[in-house]
């Protein structure tokens, strides 16, 4: 592994780790706020217990999110100092606003987690909402920074010097809206299905229903609504990419040859050497239709893009297939869930359906990771699209491989501990509810 590959892998590992905690940090506060609201309105103890139980789990996630985020803000410099030296002043605006959002989030979190019984109940509830809103805001801001790397604007380069810097224009770059919308929805989908799946499994195992049923309803309903919106927003994102980063789109679709009536390629194994895709389902004209709204218009293929500006095709293509496949599946299940709620259908609590939900629970997060692989690997070889190459940005310090393995060790042990702690929390919740509500169901 050379230093560049090590640095890229370390960045991918850290971001891929952080995004899980960031999603939970953004979304769980909303779930808790809903449950907390119902408790305050109805006084039903189960909802209070649910809120407290969730907040215990979330505290573990928050700290992991906070420390991994802290590592990221150093890592950007540790790995890509030459990029940050130029980019910092240009795309710094969202980061400085994000700093404020994080701070507010951290303060509100202090009130929320430690404030039970200490404040007016509605003030306490409100601090929980603030945690969610500021978390969401920071997510959107940091994605706007990432979008700028895909669609750099707000500066000119004159004789190799970055001048006429306009941080506001850089923040509202061409890609920020489609990425931020898609990411926000993704966080709701991933967290909603993950949490819902865990509670579905608990119901199936016959654990105290008065907690797990409301938990399932809150989380999965929100997740389902977001899942239905997901393909719409994804379609919008794809059209955006086609317009702004044709190389990325071509890699996503494994679309090697520029052609009219371009086919939509589903699945398959792309072969970069022969520029063909084997074993794929091809829908003639499909790609042209998705991008341009008719079945004939030409779509640019990789052959028209200089060889040294091709992103890795296979990884990008697989990532895209995984994301879209999961997106379609979750949309379907979301529709079934909402239909069941509407009709009060008994299948919602049928063991097979609960098992299905449990099985689906990791998929949202897998889609999130796959989507980021599409975005980031599809941007290669550029760190700043069309302007700076990743290879030119990497730190001159040798031996990044050791740093990479160190990070692998750190993240591996953190994942193991967080997983074990979460499992223990769920068990502890069961014990507690069994003691307090002797055989209600």
């Amino acid at each position, binding site marked *: 592994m050379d230093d560049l590959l090590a640095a890229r892998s370390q960045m991918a590992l850290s971001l891929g780790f952080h995004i899980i905690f960031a999603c939970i940090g953004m979304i769980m506060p909303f779930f808790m706020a809903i449950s907390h609201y119902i408790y305050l309105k109805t006084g039903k103890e189960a909802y209070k217990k649910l809120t407290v139980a969730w907040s215990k789990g979330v505290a*573990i996630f*928050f*700290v*992991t999110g*906070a*420390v991994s*985020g*802290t*590592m990221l*803000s*150093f890592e*950007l*410099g*540790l790995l890509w*100092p*030459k990029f*940050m*030296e*130029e980019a910092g*002043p240009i795309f*710094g*605006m969202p*980061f*400085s*606003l*994000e*700093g*404020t959002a*994080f*701070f*507010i*989030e*951290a*303060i*509100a*979190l*202090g*009130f929320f*987690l*430690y404030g039970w019984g*200490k*404040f007016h109940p509605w003030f306490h509830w409100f601090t929980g909402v603030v945690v969610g809103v500021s978390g969401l805001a920071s997510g959107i801001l940091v994605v706007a920074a990432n979008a700028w790397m895909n669609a750099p604007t707000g500066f000119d380069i004159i004789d190799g010097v970055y*001048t006429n*810097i*306009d*941080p*506001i224009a850089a923040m509202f770059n061409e890609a920020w809206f489609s990425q931020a919308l898609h990411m926000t929805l993704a966080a709701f989908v991933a967290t909603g299905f993950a949490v819902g799946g865990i509670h579905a499994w608990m119901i199936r195992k016959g654990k105290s229903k008065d907690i797990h049923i409301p938990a399932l309803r809150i989380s999965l309903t929100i997740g389902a609504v977001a899942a239905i919106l997901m393909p719409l927003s994804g379609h919008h994102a794809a059209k955006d990419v086609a317009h702004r980063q044709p190389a990325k789109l071509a890699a996503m679709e494994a679309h090697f040859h520029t052609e009219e009536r371009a086919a939509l390629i589903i699945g398959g194994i792309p072969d970069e050497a022969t520029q063909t895709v084997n074993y794929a389902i091809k829908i003639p004209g499909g790609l042209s239709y998705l991008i341009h709204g008719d079945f004939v218009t030409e779509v640019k293929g990789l052959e028209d893009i200089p060889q040294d500006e091709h992103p890795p095709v296979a990884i990008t293509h697989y990532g895209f297939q995984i994301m879209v496949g999961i997106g379609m599946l979750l949309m379907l299940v979301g529709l079934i869930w909402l239909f069941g709620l509407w009709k009060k259908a008994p299948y919602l609590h049928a063991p097979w359906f609960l098992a299905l939900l449990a099985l689906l629970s990791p998929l949202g997060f897998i889609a999130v990771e796959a989507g980021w692989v599409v975005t980031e690997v599809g941007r290669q070889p550029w760190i700043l699209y069309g302007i700076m190459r990743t290879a030119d940005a990497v*730190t*001159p*310090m*040798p*031996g990044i491989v050791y*740093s990479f393995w*160190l990070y692998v060790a750190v993240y591996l042990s*953190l994942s193991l501990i967080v997983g074990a*702690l979460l499992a*223990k*929390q769920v*068990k*502890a919740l069961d014990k507690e509810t069994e003691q307090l509500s002797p055989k209600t169901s």
Partner: protein
Amino acid sequence: MVDIIIAFLYLSLLMYLLFGGADFGAGIIEFFTSDAKKDRTRLLTYQAIGPIWEANHMWLIITIVILFVGFPKVYSTVSIFLHIPVSLLLLGIIARGTAFIFRHYDPDQGKFQPLYNLIFVYSSFLSPLFLGILAGTIISGRIDLEAASFPEAYLFPWLAFFPISVGLFTVAICGYLAAVFLIGEAQTHEDQMLFRKKAIRMNVLTVVAGALVFLAATLEGIPLLAGMLDHPITILALVLASISLPLTWKYLRENFHMRARILVGFQVSMILFALFYSIHPAFMVFKNSVLILKDAAAGPATMNSLGIALLVGSVFILPSLFYLIYSFQKKPFQPLAKK
């Protein structure tokens, strides 16, 4: 605007040293506590720090963001030449933060506790040690921008007596801050006496470590003392810090905990001030050159938007942060015998 941003930079550094430092210090105190009393110290630490842990930690993020947005040259130089100590600092921060929360949220209070405690205590040393090493290297002139070999570029600048002595000094300061802070949180007379004893020891340690810093500076030919004595204002700062020391002890004996805390905060601020002012107007000293913050600032459009973001941010942050700290402040314990 540049001046405002520089002020914010120093302010967030100072806040991190004070609040983050007291936070690290709690782990250092735990290390020096006998096994019998460790559990109580732990509980008290948790109650005192739990609610403000994340917020304390945010000052570091603000510092970093100011650096990479406003002074990218500082950020990239530190990132390149101090890659190794920065990574070790991060390791300390990640291990400590997670161990602190995990040990509380592990419902099974048995098996893993000793491991969490061990990690918590050692990383509480590691983090301020490397924080101090970074500061020490930055002001020492040991970074060689033209270094040719790996050790000269990436190891020798920080792996030396002076930076390490500043690291030890930072560790001692953190312990001192924490001890004084915890006296005010203590719920029983016994605990109070315990932390008072710690505070005395940490105070002595701080003074010893401070002397070590000057010794190291002299041995390595770093004009630290000369730099400080050059400016009347740093002399004043050091004198004020020394004078306020006995006053702190008077307040502590009379149970004016808040005043004692403020004085200790003042002392630490003065020390930090003197340290950085000794190289003024430079912010970083390299082997053959210096870096002056104002010259390294990003363009006016960036600085304006950064400054506005910071100013608007503080309108939201400072009042709510103050309210948070105030809300979770324990009523100080007042020994009956005193009245």
